[in-house]
């Protein structure tokens, strides 16, 4: 029918496996045919809490990877931080549990038509969708570097098998407990100055995305970031998830991060206005 949510559908998936990886849970779901429509950057909206739950809203999770083959048919991987009541419930679901989900939702990372030098920057569980993306980019002949950051080592998500598609993987932790001590954004200005990067793909906390946008500003580097705003519906009907975004002629609009995002052009997001209302007229 319409274009919005074009390939989305609601299904009941089965938990194939649920493993703890550092401070996260790696959850594999059997979703069947749906995987054919999932692209890196898309997300899934999951009903949490079971039948009698007092939680009424779905929770959004980035689709970390999908696989069409494998012993279970089409499967989808999520990386979930047990944070509040919804994510804790999801992390407690054992093999064989049924999960009500809607996917794929939202925009996907844009894939360049020519081989480029891509830098993938992930913060915390934000690295999840970057491994699937790395694979696609690698197949297009891109050079793929990945920099991951977190406050501490347990919050770095970097699975062994994911590293295959990456040329260089560097890890930064604020407490120095894994990789180098410092913020993942610190080396980026140098890379840009040295002309070593054409496109940055980022996913992680909003301040990280903003910092990258500021670093990139004025350069030729394209910055595609996956934003994370609080979402009530995930399908574009509630208007809770908006961000101020400017279009080419400088007009500012409050865009829904669930359907006009989560992947957005970092240069268009008005980061200083996030959580505020533009003073100009709409």
């Amino acid at each position, binding site marked *: *029918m*319409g*274009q*919005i*949510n*074009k390939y*989305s559908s*609601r299904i009941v998936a089965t938990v194939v496996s649920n493993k703890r990886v550092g401070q996260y849970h790696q959850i594999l779901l059997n979703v069947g045919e749906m995987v054919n429509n999932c692209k890196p950057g898309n997300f899934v909206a999951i*009903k949490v809490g079971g039948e009698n739950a*007092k*939680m*009424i*809203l*779905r929770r959004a999770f980035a689709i970390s990877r999908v696989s069409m083959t494998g012993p279970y048919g089409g499967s989808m991987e999520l990386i979930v931080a047990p944070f509040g009541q919804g994510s804790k419930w999801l992390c407690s679901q054992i093999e064989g549990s049924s999960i009500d989900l*809607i996917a794929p939702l939202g925009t996907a990372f844009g894939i360049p038509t020519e081989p480029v030098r891509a830098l993938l920057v992930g913060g915390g569980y934000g690295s999840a969708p970057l491994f699937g993306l790395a694979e696609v980019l690698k197949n297009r002949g891109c050079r793929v570097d990945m920099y991951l950051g977190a406050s501490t080592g347990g919050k770095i998500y970097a699975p062994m098998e994911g590293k295959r598609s990456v040329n260089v993987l560097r890890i930064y932790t604020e407490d120095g407990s894994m990789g180098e001590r410092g913020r993942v954004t610190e080396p980026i200005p140098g890379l840009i100055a040295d002309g070593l990067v054409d496109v940055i793909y980022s996913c992680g906390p909003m301040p990280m995305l903003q910092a990258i946008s500021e670093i990139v500003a004025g350069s030729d580097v394209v910055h595609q970031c996956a934003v994370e*705003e*609080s979402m*009530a*519906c995930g*399908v*574009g*009907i*509630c*208007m*809770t*998830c*908006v*961000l*101020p975004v400017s279009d080419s002629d400088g007009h*500012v609009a*409050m865009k829904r991060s669930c*359907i006009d995002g989560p992947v957005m052009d970092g240069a268009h997001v008005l980061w200083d206005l*996030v*959580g*505020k*209302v*533009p003073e100009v*007229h*709409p």
Partner: protein
Amino acid sequence: MIDLSTTLGNAWFPSPLFTASGCASSGKELAQFIDLREIGAVVTKSVMSKARYGRPTPRMAETPSGMINSIGLQGPGIDEFLTHDLPWLVSQRARVIVSIAGETVEEYATLARKVRSAPGISALEVNISCPNVENRGLVFACDPDASRRVIDGVRKTLGGELPIIAKLSPDVTDLVSIAKGVVDAGADGLALINTVLSMVINLDTMRPHLGGKTGGLSGPAIRPIAVRAIYQVHEALPTVPILGMGGVASGRDALELILAGAKGVSVGTASFGDPAAIISIQNELKELLKIRGFTSVAQAVGFAHRPNEIEGA
């Protein structure tokens, strides 16, 4: 066969289930999940004269069996709405109830004038739960006199064709007197209830969680308040059609509102949990009516008000 059709004023609908204003955006977003022709009507997001950014984020917080929101009527403005959103809905052959909102009595009248000439609209919902800039920001729906003046202005501008449904706020001492006032002023029906003024404090920042500080509570948590409001108003004004809403998430809930006196039921927050909720609710409602021996929705409207049959007679 259950006859699901219903009327609100002179408007006829094949089903008593409607979207709720602000919970279906402009309709397009839902079309992937449901066939818009299958439901009673799409009630559009309240539209104002001018485009608006709405309130700052965060705009929502989940609460036990509910949520609070402060969207602040973000929208494209009436002209854009009438040139783009409405024609799309009409082209889909969806029935449409347009919801309007204003900051002054004059703005409501202006909106009504613009809507009057637009084709394909079944009814006009007038959301008067907005701050009145001419009276210290006091919400119109909380002020009997301002409520009446808004509806009066809309009625006069609109002429006599399109049914006017006045949407009321439950945040008042005497809902029935507000209802009577707007009906006297020319409303053909009432929409009950809008969200309940609420707040959540974020325990991390230790400040109000929403950018707009207060927000409106919706979802199953408020259903008992909605049922009471509908029951009270239907008791006082049994001939005035009510479009009921507030926490409807299942056929059982829709039936509860209908028994209390609603001729139509809007599904709002439940669509956030499941974009096809309205269709399941419609199917469940049909089943529940059948089990109870009703052959039409009309028979069930306000049933809870009828005296019990004499026991053992």
